[in-house]
């Protein structure tokens, strides 16, 4: 909490301003705004179809919002193509795990460093001295991240053969390899059992504290969001329903109605 409060004094790290997305006749997002501060864990919640993943895909530039702006450290990200989002420090994981299934864990994490490294095909083919040096440095960094996420034992294994929970850790490792300032986690608890969710919660908090990464967490699992988030934004039918501390959002009558329905419906 203290980190979040410190952050309040500065400009927000990420500012979402009035984002709307329309698919055909369906309004997936309607004027959603919120700020994210440095060092925060922000939970984005809402029932199915509330627009959480749509918002997420706007942040990683897979969707083009129709009106609005998204500012990262005061700069709009909307003029950037999707592959130039990683370099400004926005990293992400995917809802159903989107790894490179035929590559080893190490190579998956190495691909994660793409936006932080340079090369060209000629130097790479000739394996010039600077390429070799770069690869050696990169390997050190990649091994550090792999150890950090406890993946040493499976480092050389092809990811398609790994259990789902492990694959999710590999995806986290790959995202961290890009040294993000903001990490977007899309339902990291999906498909995990109770014990694993608990471990995941600790891990996310550790990543925030030790690697100084601000985290946007989209999650169905209320227990997880309420236990680790500093700030919660609730969406329903593409609109922002409520925003505040986990406790405040949890007791907000609109949020309760959205999740449980009300008597008069």
């Amino acid at each position: 909490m203290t980190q979040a409060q410190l952050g309040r004094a500065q400009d927000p790290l990420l500012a979402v301003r009035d984002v709307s997305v329309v698919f055909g006749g369906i309004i997936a997002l309607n004027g959603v705004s919120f700020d994210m501060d440095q060092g925060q864990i922000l939970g984005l919640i809402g029932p199915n179809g509330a627009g959480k993943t749509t918002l997420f895909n706007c942040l990683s530039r897979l969707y083009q919002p129709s009106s609005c702006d998204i500012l990262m450290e005061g700069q709009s990200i909307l003029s950037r193509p999707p592959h130039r989002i990683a370099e400004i420090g926005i990293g992400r994981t995917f809802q159903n795990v989107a790894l490179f299934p035929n590559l080893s864990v190490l190579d998956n994490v190495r691909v994660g460093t793409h936006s932080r490294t340079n090369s060209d095909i000629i130097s790479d083919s000739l394996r010039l001295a600077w390429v070799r040096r770069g690869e050696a440095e990169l390997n050190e960094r990649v091994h550090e991240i792999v150890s950090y996420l406890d993946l040493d034992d499976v480092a050389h294994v092809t990811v398609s053969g790994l259990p789902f929970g492990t694959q999710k850790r590999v995806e986290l490792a790959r995202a961290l390899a890009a040294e993000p300032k903001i990490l977007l986690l899309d339902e990291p608890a999906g498909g995990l059992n109770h014990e694993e969710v608990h471990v995941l919660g600790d891990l996310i908090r550790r990543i925030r504290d030790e690697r100084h990464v601000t985290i946007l967490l989209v999650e169905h699992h209320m227990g997880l969001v309420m236990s680790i988030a500093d700030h919660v934004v609730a969406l329903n039918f593409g609109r922002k329903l409520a925003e505040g501390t986990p406790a405040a959002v949890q007791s907000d009558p609109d949020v309760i109605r959205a999740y449980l329905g009300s008597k008069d419906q």
Partner: protein
Amino acid sequence: MSAVEDVVTEAPAVEAVPKRAMTLGYGTSLVMLGLLIVAPMFVKNFIIFQLTMLLIYGLAVLALNILTGGSGQFSLGQSAFYAVGAYTSAILMEHVGMNYALTLPIAGIVCFGFGFLFGQPALRLSGVYLALATFALATAMPQLLKLGYFEHWTGGVQGLVVTKPDAPFGLPMSQDMWLYYFTLVVTIAIYIFSVNLLRSRSGRAFMAIRDNEIAASAMGIDVALYKTLAFGVSAGITGVAGGLGAITVQFVAPDGYTISLAINLFLGMVVGGVGWLPGSIVGSAFIIFVPNIAEGISKGLSGAVFGILLFLVIFLVPHGARQVAIVAQQLIGKLKKN
């Protein structure tokens, strides 16, 4: 200890492809190299010529392997790049009088440019649609080469005759033998460059795109750039192979570079194992020697026999030579333990 063995020793529980899955270990590579160096010393000139073609088609299959096995893009148009390379070398040698060895890098660069440009519209296509677009390229190429407009340079339907180079420095070697060793050096150099490339940041970008484009883009990979680069690299290597082919065969003509060449190269890649670079030479051997074997079995039905042999290979070892190599490694591993 070779890479294939790593599969068995490192992670027996899962169907794993090891870090060096696309290449061979040092031991196996040296044995292969030794065989390739010694082989021509004991055979007749015609066989040496065939071995040279084996290396050249091996290069062309390798190029396709980088494109399909590396970046996941299909191409049935490799014969077009091969033709451009062959004509570039032939025209430079016969019309400009350039040294044959110097024409090869130029053929490579011209084809890289051609492939890179062709890769631009191909970006919008994937899978079977891309295969069809490249098929169109392969179909159009022989006719483009016949065009009267270029006839002064290309020789039109007649084609061009290319002078076969002698061994330099007065080496006591037949022309065929010299060409074989020259081709071998070029092939090994390109093989090493390709292995380096696939193990590097660029190679990982290719493979990331092959496996998941959206995730690759989220990691900061410029998908369009790397896809066209893969096309360029593949076309460039095919162009060098085409140039070597022109010098070895001493002749270029439009009908030597039809769609059937492209299909043969595709076949070679599948038989060698998609994405396994050393398999390229096995695939190349298949497309050069198996038709002859089929003809030996039955003259009238050679096509049918070839079809049956191909069917057997695909049925028994769907992953091609790579699968055979893995099984062989397992057997050797077991023998060592006993």
